[in-house]
């Protein structure tokens, strides 16, 4: 009996051996790099710092959390960050839903791949290039946006929260369009026909049939836009002016006070967990 035959027989009769062979690599990746880094983050956040040398002292303390929770400034940053993430998610959804609907159900089937390619084209360009492009467009006096709205007696919002929301919405839009497109494309024509057949006008069909059925896809898209916005700090640095989000606080602190930065970095993780739990409770993930 050759080795190949004997190993084949072994795998055939040992289910757990097969599962181990299949999943050991992805599980190692998930365990070490993903869960491991989160654990490291958490452990670091309960260590002390030598204020003189900025070196981490491996002794237990809750002071980092107490600082984060009691200082009003960090609470305000958290609220601002969540607010920006919510705004970006809503803007992306409002743009992406009709866009995905058009591509999936109005455009001719043969032009769909082209339209989808157009949606994801911005992902081929570097993040930094796109954000610096927005910086020049957003510039208070000389920017393109200012030139565009000045005939209306308006001026560009300049750098700040509005610019950050616009920039992030631009960056993450494809992540909202793709899952919604997939959800709407999957929807059988007969379901839409059935709604019209029962007397519903197109608007009602959209609100009562298409939107509820694709809701899980919209939630899936919102998980991307919300979490990506929560953690961003580079766009905020480039477009935000003096505006700051949680990522910037982490960035400013991690060289000087790593345990404190770790405690701040746990905030978006917790916010994301709360969001996931509430989404799950709403049943939106049941049909994913």
């Amino acid at each position: 009996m050759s080795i190949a035959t004997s190993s084949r027989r072994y795998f055939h009769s040992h289910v757990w051996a097969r599962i181990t062979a299949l999943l050991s690599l992805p599980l190692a990746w998930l365990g070490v790099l993903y869960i491991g880094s989160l654990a490291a983050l958490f452990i670091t956040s309960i260590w002390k710092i030598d204020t003189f040398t900025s070196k981490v002292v491996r002794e237990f303390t809750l002071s980092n959390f107490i600082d984060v929770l009691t200082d009003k400034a960090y609470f305000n940053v958290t609220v601002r960050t969540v607010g920006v993430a919510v705004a970006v998610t809503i803007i992306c959804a409002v743009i992406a839903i009709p866009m995905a609907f058009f591509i999936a159900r109005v455009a001719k089937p043969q032009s769909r791949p082209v339209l989808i390619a157009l949606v994801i084209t911005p992902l081929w360009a570097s993040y930094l290039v796109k954000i610096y492009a927005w910086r020049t467009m957003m510039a208070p006096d000389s920017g393109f946006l200012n030139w565009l709205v000045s005939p209306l007696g308006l001026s560009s919002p300049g750098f700040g929260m509005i610019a950050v929301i616009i920039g992030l919405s631009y960056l993450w839009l494809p992540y909202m369009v793709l899952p919604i497109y997939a959800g709407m494309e999957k929807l059988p024509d007969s379901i839409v026909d059935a709604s019209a057949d029962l007397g519903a006008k197109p608007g009602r069909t959209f609100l009562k049939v298409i939107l509820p059925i694709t809701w899980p896809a919209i939630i899936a898209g919102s998980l991307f836009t919300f979490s990506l916005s929560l953690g961003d700090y580079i766009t905020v640095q480039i477009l935000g002016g003096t505006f700051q989000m949680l990522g910037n606080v982490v960035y400013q602190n991690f060289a000087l006070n790593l345990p404190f930065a770790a405690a701040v970095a746990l905030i978006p993780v917790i916010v994301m967990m709360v969001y996931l739990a509430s989404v799950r409770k709403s049943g939106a993930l049941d049909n994913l």
Partner: protein
Amino acid sequence: MGSKSSVIISLRGLSKNFGSVRAVDGVDLDIYQGEFLTLLGPSGSGKTTVLRMIAGFEKPDAGSIELNGKEITHLPAYERDVNTVFQDYALFPHMDVISNIEYGLRVKAIAKDERRAQAMAALAQVRLDGYENRKPSQLSGGQRQRVALARALVNRPSVLLLDEPLGALDLKLREQMQIELKELQRQVGITFIFVTHDQEEALTMSDRVAVFDRGKIQQLDKPATIYENPANSFVAGFVGISNLITGAASLSLLGKGGTWLVRPEKIEIDSPATGGRRAQGQIREVEYLGPATRFLVDLDVGISLMALRQNTSESATSVAEMRNTKVTVSWDIESEYKVEK
């Protein structure tokens, strides 16, 4: 059907192209109030497209559709007084059974209590009492089928359109649903237009059958006439199994030219009776079907005929022994039907 009463749907010169394919080619058809009409044909024959044009899901390229004497050719689907039962049922997956059934009534802004009462009655009519709070995903195929029926019928449409509604069900359930559908149609008295590719289904359920091929109606008549006296060789070949006797065989066997049809169940093997047509041959194949046996007989004149015989007392072994034996086949001259082309 009986009552040649009023025409409820009238199709005139109805045509539809998909690209270069002429899916429906100048169909004229009058459908009467309260009848069960089946559009029968192979896939691609245009039967479903005709149904979808009546429903308003496809726009005809030419021709007109009238419903209750009013032209509806260019009305959108949501303004037509017809309802459809879809092949895949098309139930709304995010709504429970009762909300699915209430959907059409809700659109019409019927008050909640009234709506609920009508929906519950429709649910009872399809014998699904107690299932109102299930989701479609929790139902079997047959149950979904019934919910789809209730959802359409609760609106009391002038016409119910059924697009191969039994196609996804297994044989036993399908036969049961055929009977239920027919009973339901008698109860509610609504005109049913039923699309199927299953000729047996068409023959058992319909008042009239329209046989479609290549976008045209080949024959429109009662099931018995379609079966016994097919208008042309397509209908003869599509509806039931038929023996077509043509050319030289027709001249030598029947003493007349043209194409003639004899149904297998009309052909007897070694019948003691005299008279009618008689021919010698040898049994090539024997198929035991349970209630009947099918014989393929090679005639000495050079053609083969299919004969079907009811099994009264024969066992599978005794009929199997008849293979390769010499036999005489016979049939009445009245069983021969002239077939066009």
